[in-house]
């Protein structure tokens, strides 16, 4: 039933698409071979957004990244929204569809943020049911992304990396490894990000995300990192990324820059940095 990869993303750099970069990307994409769009921005009936997306899809592989499905929600999935996703994936035929291990909608209110989940057996069962439903409706495998988290749940009984592996095993979904999220959560939750990566099922990863974070302070004087996507990728995140590709092989790698978005050459240069890491890792494999 699941279409897992005849049109998979290339193991090359991609960027989160911003309309202000349209002309720059078309004129000089540099090392960028694919683009990621937020599904919810392309659910209108026509106009410039869809015209640009059609033009981009003729030249680049496209990844559709949902930010509003609320896969971890306690309530049922929004079937109207799922139908919109199916329609978008139907005409666009993207190389990948991904969503988050998070929730954003409760009781008909959409909170526009990726809210955290307690990792318990009850949450696991609910998330798996929802992913089964998504893959059934879309008729394809989806990737599930590890979140940035800022707090813990007293009721949690599982580690995140165990939870994700279990979801993938039960549903057949792939994983989207956000390396910045690993680093942000590690600092915020006080675990070792390198050890987390060593236990992450990299063979199930179809895509990697890199992005910038901001530094803040939490209660009791502890550091707190915010997944802000408004700056270059931080050095420790580049180091973790190199570890991930050395350990699991090269993957399609996205630079996410959603706030204080820079001019196209700056974003292209950041994608170039990912291309260098991929080239070094690829050379090691062939050597």
């Amino acid at each position: 039933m699941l279409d897992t990869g005849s049109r998979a993303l290339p193991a090359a750099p991609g960027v989160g698409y911003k309309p202000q970069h349209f002309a720059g990307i078309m004129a000089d994409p540099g090392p960028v071979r694919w683009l990621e769009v937020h599904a919810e921005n392309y659910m209108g009936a026509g106009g410039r957004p869809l015209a640009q997306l059609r033009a981009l899809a003729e030249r680049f592989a496209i990844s559709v990244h949902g930010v509003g499905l609320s896969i971890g929600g306690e309530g049922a999935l929004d079937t109207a929204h799922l139908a919109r996703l199916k329609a978008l994936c139907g005409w666009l035929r993207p190389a990948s569809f991904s969503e988050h291990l998070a929730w954003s909608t409760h009781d008909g209110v959409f909170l526009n943020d990726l809210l955290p989940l307690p990792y318990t057996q009850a949450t696991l069962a609910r998330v798996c049911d929802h992913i089964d439903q998504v893959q059934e409706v879309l008729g394809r495998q989806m990737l599930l992304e590890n979140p940035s988290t800022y707090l813990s749940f007293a009721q949690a009984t599982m580690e995140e990396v165990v939870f994700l592996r279990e979801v993938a095993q039960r549903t057949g979904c792939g994983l989207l490894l956000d390396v910045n999220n690993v680093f942000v959560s590690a600092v915020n939750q006080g675990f070792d990000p390198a050890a987390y990566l060593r236990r992450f099922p990299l063979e199930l990863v179809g895509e990697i995300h890199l992005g910038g974070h901001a530094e803040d302070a939490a209660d009791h004087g502890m550091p707190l990192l915010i997944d802000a996507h408004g700056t270059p990728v931080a050095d420790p995140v580049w180091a973790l990324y190199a570890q991930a590709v050395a350990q699991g092989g090269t993957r399609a790698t996205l630079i996410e820059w959603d706030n204080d978005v820079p001019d196209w050459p700056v974003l292209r240069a950041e994608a170039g940095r990912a291309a260098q890491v991929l080239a070094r890792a690829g050379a090691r494999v062939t050597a």
Partner: protein
Amino acid sequence: MSQSAFAQAVLMPDAPLPPGLVDPQGRPAPRRFDVYRNTVAASLVAALEEGFPVVRQLVGAPFFAAMALVVLRAHPPEGPVLSGYGAAFPTFLEQFPPVAHLGYLPDMARLELLVRDSYHAADAVPLAAEALAALPVPALLASRIGLAPSLRLMPSRWPVQAIWCAHQAGGAEPPMQPGDVVVLRPEFDPRPHLLPAGGLAVIRGLHAGLTLEAALDAAPGADLTAVLTLLLRGRAIVELRR
């Protein structure tokens, strides 16, 4: 801890912290919870700022940001497609005492909703002006005119069209003339236009599937040439049916 308690607390700044949310040492973590509170509020304020740029210019950015916090708590989004967020904003403005002296503000919010709606509306291929010009007048009057799916109509007694134009980057300042508005999208960028006399009634008639003649009968005193010229220039006539 239920998502109901979390959702309530994340939207309302004065609500108590839900139990069971802790830091890695198991201590209560109000500042950590505030990250979610801040992100929810800031992202929805940003969505309203993006959706209502002219209202924001009219009341000033600081006032708009403060008002947006009230709006998003009274009327949070009902779904994840935020291009439609803000439908309740015009009515909110009608009932929000601090802007009661700005009578035109609710209509400006309505217009900005329609402009955004038009931006995302379906595409259609416009008819060339020659196709209309080639028709003898009786045949034209007997025709039903199909209009672009991106066309939007708004009755108004305020000069919102002129105020909207004056608040665009490099925008001209048309005379402050009140009246009904039609939003037309020749290619990708919708613009509001002041409707000539009877224009609203004529276009409503055409939308209802009336022939041009019947639409005119329903709009005594309408300036047919002005209406058709406006629609043609806005590339809003997409079909002629006998």
